[in-house]
């Protein structure tokens, strides 16, 4: 129910706004602020109650009526470790974004209506457990973005920017859609469903044809890649963010852009391991384009917004690298960066929006010495920039470090270059921006610029910084939630040999089928903490390590008690019994996952 409220509240509020009189100037903002605040509270509650250490989906809820049963489409929401943090981040950013909508003075009703639709779409995309709705919610945000940039955007180029961003994104989304449909059609007609857990389970049990994997994976990779501004399809991003109103840029750069990455982690990689093996190398190379090329481009920017936009594109490279590493540390790191960067991008755009609002320019060269007049904003900007360089203490550091550790084993050369890009190039443009905006002499005509007036207006910035620091100092809040789920993803992605052995098949299926188990638990028994997946050091479930640890957990595989597991899970493979079935066996998910992965004969 919590999830349903989180996703539906913004839409309901938007629908309500539509019937307000046009002349009302305060009500829309109040409604939007109230809604996002409630959503934030719900998201925090969800995050708090999340059963850490479980791989399965929790808070699963089906929104009745939506969808088409005939095609296996059902609006099912749920969270696991990967998207729990993303949802929380989305809610935080949305709440903060309402707080900085000072620059919206005309046509407020329309703005906040679109804003709420966009928020709902973003949250829905991350919460959705159905492939169709996953896409559906994401596309919902497309038109609001278009109109918001067009009407409330700034700069001469906003027409061009809004068309560019819309066309690029819809192209990417459509390519991904074709991939998703093709994925759906890989299942036999009587079992077809868009349900992500069911699909994952099906493809864990049944090997998808290599040819199909090789064809579908690139469609998803490039489709999603365009949505995440994968180099060389990134040019829409800095331009679009530069022209967008602050709140839109925050939501888009911070949250919506993570959609493609989430899709890669959730769908493309675990469902098509063979395709992933082949194509992730390409992705690893392209991510260098993001990190190095866009980093260098960012160095040359004269406009603060374009600088932040390019740096945000550069940061996406780390996430790609983490995904491409295909091991537990890398993928966990990728998810952490997604969350951290979401908060950071939102913070940066909020700050640049404030600067533009008060100084009416974002040209770095014209600014200088602002720290004297803007102590709060200046401090926040410094913190944001330092977080962008990957300073320890901020959540970004955690993510980047994890990604580098994870990727080192697979792609040492690329990781080396990426490190260089992150540490040097990032530091250069971030610190240069800090220097030329905040330090130096304050020009005479800047005397009238104002700092944030009161505590309420400081709140959005404070919330974002607080979260960044919180996750920076206590990364286990995130990683412990992410790891079990990331483990499933990594096991599924590295499973190529597993399919052929019977034991592996059963256990993998059990890993994928853990959804039904956790769902049942949600329905009946109160959650009990599962055993922690291995010790601290064993998290890095890379190929060499898993081979080493095989003897330890090798026993369950040969255990005859495993045989019913595979039968059982095949039965679960039926979508309907899986969704509605009660009383399926309770299995220790994470343990199975380990056995699945580690018992697998490696090449």
């Amino acid at each position, binding site marked *: 129910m919590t999830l349903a409220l989180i996703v539906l509240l913004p839409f309901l509020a938007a629908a309500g706004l539509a019937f307000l009189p046009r002349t009302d100037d305060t009500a829309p903002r109040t409604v939007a602020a109230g809604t996002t605040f409630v959503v934030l509270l719900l998201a925090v509650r969800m995050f708090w109650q999340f059963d850490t250490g479980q791989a399965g989906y929790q808070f699963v809820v089906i929104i009745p009526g939506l969808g088409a049963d005939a095609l296996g489409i059902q609006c099912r929401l749920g969270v696991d470790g990967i998207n729990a943090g993303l949802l929380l981040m989305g809610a935080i950013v949305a709440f903060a974004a309402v707080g900085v909508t000072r620059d919206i003075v005309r046509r407020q009703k329309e703005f906040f209506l679109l804003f709420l639709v966009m928020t709902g779409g973003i949250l829905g995309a991350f919460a959705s457990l159905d492939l169709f709705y996953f896409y559906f919610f994401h596309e919902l945000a497309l038109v609001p973005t278009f109109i918001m940039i067009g009407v409330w955007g700034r700069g001469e180029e906003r027409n061009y920017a809004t068309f560019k961003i819309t*066309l690029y994104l819809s192209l990417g989304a459509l390519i991904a859609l074709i991939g998703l449909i093709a994925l759906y059609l890989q299942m036999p007609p009587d079992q077809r469903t868009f349900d992500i857990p069911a699909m994952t389970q099906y493809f864990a049990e049944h090997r998808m044809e290599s040819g199909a994997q090789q064809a579908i994976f690139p469609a998803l990779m490039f489709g999603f890649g365009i949505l995440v501004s994968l180099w060389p399809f990134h040019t829409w991003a800095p331009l679009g963010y530069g022209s967008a109103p602050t709140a839109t840029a925050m939501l888009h750069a911070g949250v919506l852009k993570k959609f493609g990455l989430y899709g890669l982690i959730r769908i493309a990689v675990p469902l098509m391991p063979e395709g992933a093996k082949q194509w992730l190398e390409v992705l690893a190379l392209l991510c260098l384009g993001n990190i190095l090329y866009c980093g260098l481009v960012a160095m040359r920017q004269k406009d603060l917004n374009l600088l932040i936009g390019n740096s945000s594109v550069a940061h996406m490279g780390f996430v790609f690298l983490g995904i491409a590493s295909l091991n537990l540390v890398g993928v966990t790191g990728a998810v952490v960066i997604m969350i951290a960067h979401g908060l950071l991008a939102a913070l940066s755009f909020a700050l640049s929006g404030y600067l533009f609002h008060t100084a009416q320019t974002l040209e770095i060269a014209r600014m200088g010495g602002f720290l004297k007049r803007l102590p709060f904003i200046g401090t926040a900007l410094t913190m944001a920039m330092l977080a962008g360089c990957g300073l320890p203490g901020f959540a970004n550091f955690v993510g980047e470090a994890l990604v580098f550790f994870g990727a080192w084993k697979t792609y040492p050369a690329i990781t080396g270059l990426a490190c260089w890009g992150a540490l040097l190039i990032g530091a250069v443009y971030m610190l240069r921006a800090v220097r030329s905006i905040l330090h130096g002499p304050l020009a005479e005509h800047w005397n009238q610029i104002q700092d944030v007036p009161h505590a309420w207006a400081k709140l959005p910035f404070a919330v974002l910084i607080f979260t960044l620091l919180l996750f920076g100092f206590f990364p286990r809040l995130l990683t412990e939630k992410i790891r079990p789920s990331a483990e499933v993803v990594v096991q599924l992605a590295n499973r190529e040999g597993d399919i052929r052995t019977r034991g592996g098949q059963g256990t993998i299926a059990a890993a994928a089928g853990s959804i039904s188990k956790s769902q049942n638990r949600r329905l009946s028994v109160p959650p009990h903490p599962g055993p922690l997946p291995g010790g601290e050091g064993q998290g890095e479930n890379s190929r060499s390590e898993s081979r080493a640890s095989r003897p330890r957990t090798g026993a369950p595989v040969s255990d005859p008690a495993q045989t019913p597991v595979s039968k059982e899970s095949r039965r679960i493979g039926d979508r309907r019994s899986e969704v509605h079935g009660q009383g399926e066996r309770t299995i220790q998910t994470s343990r199975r996952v380990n056995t699945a992965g580690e018992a697998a004969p490696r090449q």
Partner: protein
Amino acid sequence: MNLSLSILEFAVIGAGLAILLADLWTPVPQKRNLGYAAAAAVGLIFLASMLMQAAAPAYAFEKMYVLDGLALFFKRFFLFAAVIVLVMSVEFADRIEAGIAEYYALIMFALAGMMFAASANDFILVFVSLELITVTFYVLTSFQRGRLHSLEAGVKYLILGALASAFLVYGIALVFGVANTTNFGELMGSARVASARPVFLLGLLLVLVGLGFKIAAFPFQIWAPDVYQGSPAPTTAFLAVGSKAAGFILLLRVLFSAVPEITVNWTKLLMVIAGMTILYGNLCAIPQRNLKRLLGYSSIAHAGYMLLGVAAMNSAGSSAILYYLGAYLFTVLAAFTVICVVMRGVEGDDISAVAGLHQRSPLLAASLSLAMVSLAGIPPLAGFFGKFLLLKAVVEKGATQPGCYWLIAVAILGVVISLYYYLGVVRAIYWSKGSAELSDIKVSWPIQVSLYACIAAMFYLGLFPDRLVNIAMEAVKALKL
């Protein structure tokens, strides 16, 4: 002979004749309101059609006429479209110099033709119903006798329509010459034997030409933009929705019910036509400034999308066409209703006329924007789910016909291009400069009701597609797929 099967058509014709007669004794200022009476009558028939069932196909007129789920689906479709179009024509009445009652009556006769087309099970009925539609549209397109554009549209439609009819009837003659029958059921039995004859294939090809003209498929799309631009707005709306849908139901029946064995050999041909239609419509729409002309090109593109479903040659494709048409119905009607209201007194229907519409009338602005967004195929509106189904059908076909992937690429390209011009209209509504006129637009309550109905339907079909999907899947069982 089972006359009761075609009771709906007779009711429509009767109502049309009644409107004609009522016109004779209605004082001039009241004539306009006859449209409401006509809309109410058609609305009642629409409700009555909801009570009808077609579990098993039933035949009438020596098996020329069939009433099955597919026919009923399209009959309801046409009836609903006609209700909105009639309401729209009342709004449009002051721009028609004389004979508004005849305008209403002609719409109803065209409606009857479409409903017969939905039930056609014989080439003769195909021809007769198509002619009933086309001939009434010759008059409807040129109804604004004072406007040169309208006359031009009428003449163009007349000449090209007559040409297409000639192709069609020639094709039918050749088919009959070889197969010795015009009935679809009998043709299916003899098609395999007759398909060895090139003349038979030529005949079918000519029939396809005739139907391709109706749906404005490449390369028979030349007439569409001019006619859409010149005709009165309600005519254009009915042409875009009704006439096109009638073309599609006939196409489906001919391809999948009369000669399914031959159709499977034509996959490539249909794929090429679909791809070219999508590209042509979308590319030509880019530079258009005239809103009706833009929608004319976009309707070509949409015919292309629907042809994807035909080219997919599976029941998923055909049911997707039905769904798409359902979505297209509400979307296009909403768009043309807005055009009909906004373009009063605007010469040239230029897009700039909708500038600032969000201030003049939020309802109209929202309707037109939603219509454009739905046409572009963006969730949560109906058009998205339609495109989703069509693409799904083609991807499904791709397993056996690798060429389909090219078709998909073309379709995606088309959708992205179409976003550009559809969103261009949205842009004009919300933030383009330079509209002199900023007075509020009064929207009469029937127009409001029909706009709200269209918007509600767009959202309903986009959010809760299940019902229509099931109906469509049930309906296409009548075809031999």
